[in-house]
């Protein structure tokens, strides 16, 4: 075959080449990960990095949400701006979108604050555990007594702060408030035992004191988190979030799902008109399955539930498996073709 003249050759599509290179490299990685035995993947260090790499792909996917948002704002924004047909629907959509975004962001910020407060108490537990671990492993660290004193000072400060700000007024008398008070009292009660922690090696008494303080810190963290979440449930942000998400969004989703019942009846009415042998077969099978499912079917015949079971497990499963096998084989073929970029203008002229 004669080579085409330089002027007749297609220009090199750098964009397509970059896409193909990335597709091939990504495919090579996942293919290698799949075909390598588990032991080989571990010894090559692929297994340890696999989660991080997979998370990277999820992050790229999450970025695409921005594309969706941009499309929504651009499509509906222009409809409102030029007062095109249906602009009111677009306005409702954008108002809903931005209200939900704003309220969710505020609620997220609030929950971050709660987590940060609960974390302060969690530090008490973690610090106590760390002191024990360091002492047992003889790790280089300040003297035990110094660390125990620092832990006690931090815990005392935290308890004073909780006592002064949270355990006052009516909220402190609620069940969660009482639980928080009990957790705080338990931690305060365990703190004097830290004096038993010696300066050099860890004694059994010292270890017991640190373990008790650690447990009390964890309990306080859980109680504090629950108390603060209860406190925040009465804030305007949380109430708005509950109204929009649970009161509206979830209910609208349920309403759409409920529509299925009506549509199934309408579709069944159309499908079950016996016009051909196939529709007669479908009608008969549907009748057996429906009657076999309910107690009325058993009244008609004891065999109906068994017939229903046979229909579902034998012909139905066989058909499902055949469809799945065919689709999976086709997907495998397409995946190999995509991976190696063996395309010639199937869905994009640029890939020629």
């Amino acid at each position, binding site marked *: 075959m004669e080579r085409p003249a330089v002027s007749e050759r297609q220009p090199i599509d750098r964009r397509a080449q970059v896409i193909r290179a990335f597709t091939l490299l990504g495919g090579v990685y996942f293919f290698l990960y*799949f*075909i*390598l*035995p*588990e*032991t080989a*993947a571990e010894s090559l260090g692929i297994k340890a990095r696999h989660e991080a790499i997979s998370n990277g792909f999820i992050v790229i*996917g999450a970025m*695409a*949400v*921005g*594309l*969706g*948002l941009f*499309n*929504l704002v*651009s*499509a509906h924004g*222009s409809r409102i701006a030029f007062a095109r047909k*249906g602009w009111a*629907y677009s306005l409702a959509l954008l108002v809903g979108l931005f209200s939900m975004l704003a309220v969710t962001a505020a609620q997220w910020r609030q929950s971050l604050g709660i987590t940060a407060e609960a974390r302060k108490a969690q530090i008490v537990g973690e610090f106590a555990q760390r002191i024990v671990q360091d002492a047992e492993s003889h790790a280089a660290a300040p003297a035990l007594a110094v660390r125990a004193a620092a832990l006690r000072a931090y815990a005392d400060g935290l308890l004073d702060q909780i006592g002064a700000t949270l355990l006052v007024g009516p909220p402190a008398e609620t069940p969660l408030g009482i639980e928080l008070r009990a957790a705080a009292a338990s931690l305060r009660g365990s703190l004097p035992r830290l004096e038993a922690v010696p300066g050099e090696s860890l004694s059994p008494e010292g270890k017991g004191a640190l373990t008790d303080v650690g447990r009390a810190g964890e309990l306080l963290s859980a109680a504090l988190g629950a108390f603060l979440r209860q406190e925040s449930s009465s804030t305007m942000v949380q109430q708005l979030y509950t109204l929009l998400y649970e009161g509206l*969004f979830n209910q*609208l*989703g349920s309403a*759409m*799902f409920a*529509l*299925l019942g009506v*549509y*199934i009846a*309408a*579709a*069944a009415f*159309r*499908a079950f008109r016996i016009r051909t042998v196939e529709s007669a077969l479908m009608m008969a099978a549907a009748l057996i399955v429906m009657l076999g499912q309910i107690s009325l079917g058993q009244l008609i015949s004891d065999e109906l539930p068994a017939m229903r079971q046979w229909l579902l497990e034998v012909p139905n499963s066989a*058909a499902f498996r*055949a*469809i*799945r*096998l*065919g*689709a999976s*084989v*086709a*997907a*495998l*073929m*397409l*995946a*190999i*073709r*995509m991976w190696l970029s*063996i395309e*010639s*203008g*199937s*869905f*994009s*002229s*640029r890939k020629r």
Partner: protein
Amino acid sequence: MGGLEHATPGILLTIACAAVILFVQLRRATRRGDHFIRRIAGVDAVEGAIGRCAEMGRPVAFTTALTDVGPVLYACLGVLHSVAKRVAQYKLKLVVPQYSPEAMAIVEDSVRDAYNDAGRGAAFDPQSIVFLSSEQFAFASGYMGLIHREKAGAAFLFGVFAAEALVLAEAGQQVGARQVAASVSPEQVAFFICTCDYTLIGEELFAASAYLSREPVQVATLAAQDRVKLLFAAIIVVGVLLATLGALAPGITLPSIERFFTASWSDLL
């Protein structure tokens, strides 16, 4: 084999066989191009449905529903490209409601290319690719609203569907749209058969693109997948025979097909 993290030697050998069959068919298609594709009524109906829209002056809707980026989406894009090209030639309006933002970018590119191929690149409207929602029922309600407002003359439902399948198909039915559905989700096929004019089942979705384009690479893939399916059918028959023989004559030790696929590298070495 859901959740399989590492291939067993048997699975690796099967994938290798599939790849070899694909390459042999690709070579044959590019050299001789003599593959035959049987008639698929549902795919023939695609052309008719677009023609009907041209007569009625109504828009065409195409959705890939819950399909994410993957082989199924690429199979749908083959059909979308053909539909969009025809829509561009007939100067019709196309609406492509989207569920997945990742897929949306690829879909937009594909539709733009189809308009360019039809020589009507300037007529492409990026806003015809509408992102609705990544929430299943929010997407379904958005689709219903869109189909009712636009009074679509034809609706093509290709890809992965779940419980919203019937809601989408009923919306098209209510506005009298000619509907062609293709799904790899067997649970939804029954709903589509009840509601749509034509339904492509399972792998027919993958065949549709090759059928419409008659493009050698796609036709070769179709031929290869038929041969791989034959291979699997042979494996199933051999497996059933071996298992039956094993049950009839317990004293004879026969090779196990199940063991061939499940034995790990450490079992072999």
